[in-house]
């Protein structure tokens, strides 16, 4: 296991009102290879805080996080090179505006690798590979990252992390603010990155359709506690998802309405539109 959370809690200091517990008593394991994990939960449930623990950006107030054999506890340990952990677990923030600063896309992507001591020429190669991986052509290399569209900025910020060649990739709401087509392309991108490299990818998202269609493991946070850890199939077969402040994917909602209101006996658990259509066909014309 590459990342192990053991009874991790994190409290943000509050003024006058006491501390605010963002996450409480979280215990979970994440493997280094081949996992495609969704981290879901309503706004303020602690998803981003949990993600920032994964590369030791913030330290737990209680408990420990073991990242590639290094144990991160509440106190800074001088024997641990935290920068190394941040290279192994790449974290992409929600808003690309928080990290893009160079005058060209190429330089901006090179910033990460060069911080880890990669020589300039090698970093340039890594930047080209990463840019190609996120589906932007070499024409983007010399462009100003601040003049790109929202989706392109997101891709460049992801490339900035990919260029560091992390073993695990964590993305904070990579699909927010994108149009439906952009979301699908982004998810296909992660799928292809996973197929090409075998890296574990953790994605924070609110979009249950994407979770159901693409992911093979879901972590549900509810008010700072880990309420569910399992496959999307298990999750969406639960009867009362509202108690976790989650919604069912569109396919399940439509098919259950079809089953209930039209009285058609159809298997409602279909992951995408094509599967849903063929399920209805099968039910209507056996």
């Amino acid at each position, binding site marked *: 296991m590459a990342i192990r959370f053991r009874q991790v809690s994190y409290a943000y200091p509050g*003024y*006058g009102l006491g501390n605010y517990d963002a996450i409480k008593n979280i215990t979970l394991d994440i493997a280094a290879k081949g996992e495609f994990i969704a981290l879901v939960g309503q706004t303020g449930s602690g998803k981003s805080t949990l993600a920032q623990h994964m590369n030791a950006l913030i330290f737990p107030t209680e408990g420990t996080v073991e990242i590639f054999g290094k144990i991160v506890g509440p106190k800074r340990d001088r024997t641990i090179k*935290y920068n190394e952990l941040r290279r192994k677990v790449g974290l992409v923030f929600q808003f690309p505006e928080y*990290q893009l600063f160079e005058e060209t896309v190429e330089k901006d992507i090179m910033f990460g690798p060069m911080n880890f001591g990669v020589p300039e020429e090698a970093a340039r190669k890594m930047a080209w590979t990463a840019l190609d991986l996120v589906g932007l052509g070499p024409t983007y290399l010399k462009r100003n990252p601040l003049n790109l569209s929202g989706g392109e900025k997101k891709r460049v910020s992801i490339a900035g*992390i990919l260029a560091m060649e992390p073993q695990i990739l964590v993305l904070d709401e990579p699909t927010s603010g994108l149009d439906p087509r952009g979301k699908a392309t982004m998810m296909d991108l992660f799928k292809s990155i996973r197929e090409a490299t075998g890296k574990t990818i953790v994605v924070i998202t609110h979009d249950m359709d994407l979770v159901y269609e693409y992911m093979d493991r879901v972590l549900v946070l509810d008010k700072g506690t880990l309420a569910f850890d399992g496959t999307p199939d298990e999750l969406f077969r639960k009867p009362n998802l509202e108690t976790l402040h989650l919604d069912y994917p569109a396919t399940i909602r439509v098919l259950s309405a079809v089953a209930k209101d039209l009285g058609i006996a159809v298997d409602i658990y279909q992951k995408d539109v094509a599967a849903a259509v063929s399920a209805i066909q099968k039910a209507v014309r056996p």
Partner: protein
Amino acid sequence: MKNIVIGQYAPGKGFFYRLDPRTKIITVVFLMVAVFLLESILQVSIALFVTLFLMIIGKISIGRVAKGLRPLFVLLLFTFSFQIFLNREGALLLSQPMNIGLYSLLGVLVLTVLWRLLARFKKFKGLLFLFWLAGVYALFAYLPAIGPIFKVFDFEIYESGVVTSIFVVVRLLIVISLSTVLTLTTKPTDLTQGLESLLRPLKRLGVNSDDFALIISISLRYIPTILDEANKIMLAQASRGADFNEGKLVEKVKQIVSLLIPMFIIAFKRSEDLADAMESRNFVPGKPRTRIHELSFGMTDLVTAIFTVLVFAGAIVLRVLP
């Protein structure tokens, strides 16, 4: 980064909270001037007690004010020591020959290391510092003059030095406590509204107090937001390997650039958004605006005004009388 509190306003109830901000601002200014008019150590001591008494009446925790004084502790200490060592008037109170030699310097070094090691016990910080100071004094004064001696001098304290140092420190204490009480009991927005109202007569001179107040309140409003944003940018760049704690100078400069540029871009974008939001709610620069909360004077303001006038007059009388 998170520990910076801008505007020390602490919600509460009490006499000072009910006062109109204009009364508070004028009162604090006049009381400060009055304190500077006082001349003797007895007078400032009485003024200090009056200040403490006022805080107790106003139900303001003195500990809270003391906390506000903490950053200024170094300044107070400097003022105190400069006065006490450099003022050479009046009767000689203490004269102690001091030897600065190899052994006493080594002793000071050991003492300092010990002090820094024990500094983990934050509770006894003040006490430890006093011990260190006393230890250094004892080393220079009483260590037998053995080994190489670099310099011999007399450590002297004069009466007027002690008096003025206490006088200056007490005066500073009062002035700082008064301004702390003001910021502790007045919301930043009320404070700017008060200032705006007080500066309105300056409009004839071409100073637009409305704009001035708006600028101040917007800046105050956005300081926490920008700090929060800076924190997020720092985390985002740290996850790309920018380590703001370690690294060589050249790397550090680059890392600070990676922090500053996104900050500027976000700040500009935010101000544009704010301008649009204000305009879409029909804000027109320079046009008069109405307020939800109009300031109004009450009985408490009258009482405070009378008290202030009395204190101020008293200070002038004390100053003028021989």
